[in-house]
């Protein structure tokens, strides 16, 4: 039996509680198992980003808890939480994910340096990842010299560098054209299979939704549907 990797309990987030309260996420339960490839969808303002940020420990819930791989991250003190993220979660944001002064290789290697992984091992892993995302010829390019799609591929490679259990991606393809979108999704699906990494990503894009094996739909901060599907 697969093990539970993401477990959100009664998760709620209310913004501006003391003025005009906005219930961005309301009483959400989500249960995701190791190796799943999940799309989080819903209309704009439905709470996708808020939910992802709470699951990733970037934002604090108003109530409820998040347990990742048996660690209740909503209870961790700040530095422990940062360390937990370093070792267990890879992030891909919508855009400008990378450190502009570092090359593709250095950006991917950065997390490994933070983990104090020895140089040789680091080098091997970075080259392997950049190869997997098809950027072996852009190793020494800085983000400014890469296209949006290439930058997102580097970001995916970086998210996977530390061999995290979970990759959280908030609209990773929002700024990409359809070709780059398909390409990025294929890479994510491949890494999901090969590295057994769990992926949870939000999107508006119907072609991206089709690639997922499970689709969770949020409406007004609540889970409206949660379905398994065969990816196309």
């Amino acid at each position, binding site marked *: 039996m697969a093990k539970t990797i993401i477990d959100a309990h009664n998760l709620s987030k209310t913004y501006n509680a003391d003025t005009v309260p906005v219930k961005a996420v309301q009483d959400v339960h989500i249960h995701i198992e190791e190796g799943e490839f999940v799309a989080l969808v819903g209309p704009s303002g439905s709470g996708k980003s808020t939910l992802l*940020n709470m699951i*990733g420990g*970037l*934002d604090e819930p108003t109530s409820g808890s998040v347990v990742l791989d048996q660690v209740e991250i909503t209870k961790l003190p*700040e*530095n422990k939480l*940062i*360390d937990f*993220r*370093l*070792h267990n979660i*890879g*992030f891909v*944001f919508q855009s*400008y*994910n990378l*450190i*502009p*002064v*570092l090359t593709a290789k250095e950006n991917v290697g*950065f*997390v490994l*340096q*933070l*983990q104090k992984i020895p140089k040789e091992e680091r080098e091997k892993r970075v080259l392997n990842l950049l190869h997997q995302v098809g950027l072996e010829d852009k190793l020494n390019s800085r983000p400014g010299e890469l296209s949006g799609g290439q930058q997102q591929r580097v970001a995916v490679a*970086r998210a996977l560098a*530390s061999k995290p259990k979970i990759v959280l991606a908030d609209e990773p393809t929002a700024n990409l054209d359809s070709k780059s979108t398909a390409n990025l999704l294929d890479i994510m699906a491949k890494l999901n299979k090969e590295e057994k990494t769990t992926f949870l990503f939000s999107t508006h894009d119907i072609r991206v939704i089709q690639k997922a094996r499970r689709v969770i739909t949020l409406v007004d901060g609540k889970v409206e549907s949660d379905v398994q599907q065969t990816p196309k």
Partner: protein
Amino acid sequence: MMLLKLAWLNIWRNKRRTIITTTSVFFAVLLAVTTRSMTDGVYENMIHNIVGYSSGYLQIHQYGYWDEQSIDNTFEENGELNQKLLKNPKVKNIMPRLNTFALASYSEKTKGVLVLGIDPIKEKEVNNLDQKISKGTYLESENENAIVLGEGLAAQLKLSVNDSLVLLGQGYHASSAAAKFKVKGIIKLGSPDLNNNIVYIPLRQAQYMYGAENRLTAISILTDKNTNLEKLKVSLQGLLDSDRYEVMTWKEMIPEMDQFIEADSTGQYIIIGVLYFLISFGLFGTLLMMIFERKHELGILIAIGMKKHLLALILMLESIMIALIGCLTGVLGGMLVVTWFNKNPIHFTGELKEIYENYGIESIMYFSNSANIFVVQTLIVLILAIVLAFYPGYTVMKLKPIDAINS
């Protein structure tokens, strides 16, 4: 290593801004270093001229002499003591002296004078005393029965070369001291005080007159312009029997001059302070802009697992790097300016030249190249850079990753 590299790369993200900021630091440091060097040079030269002809940089006395400056508080010349002193590498020369007071009279005029028993040969070598002679000639030996006196004093007594001056004083152990000397030369000294009161007598003659054979009031010690006198004083005190001898610096012996220099420097410190205050604003503005522009990126870094204190450290390194680039080039520039002026000294002209020469000080502007100046300015800038970096560091520490990423 990674942090240093990242900080270095970061400061060059906005080349123009970094160059403007470092340039402002550069000019501030250059200005501070050269003005400090110039005034310190002027002070050093002034001290050298005034102190050199009177007390010397340091003096050794019989213990208790300074509080009661009587001929009875003299000590015996001592070859062993001299050897000990000269062994210290900072001690460039020592000069035996017998300083005392006397009444000087010529025809109907009588005046209290300062009597300096000196070794004329040494004073010539060390102080070029012979070059200050304005009329007549300089003394030739320790034994010569002749004197040289200050121009002002000669004018007051209305006497000139080849006249005879009678000196009357209190000798060793209450003996009476009286002698008559031929005036061999008249000397023009920088300090009006000295000029109006001083009589130089060859040391042996002075000792003989005061009945204080082989006795000295002081050994005057000569050293380089930029020697640390307090340190030298302590090391000399270590050499000597502290019950028998006291060691004093010119600052203790001529406190007025020290106070004058202190007061004069204060104005300058204020100007330099304002200068640094202004560049602090520039540097601070740059730091603020740096974190403001990079909030999103800082948020991403915290999200992917970088601890906040490391980020704060990077910002501090950036601040230090910007400041140090400006500071080190400023110091280097300052050194070049100072070296150049030391090779090609500025000669004062016109009124300023006259004033200087009236005081018996060479009319040349010296620049001090004491390492102290450069080190102090570097430290000030370094500390400024660190202190200013606390604010961006604090901002990072309370940054919420999600707010930063969304900004």
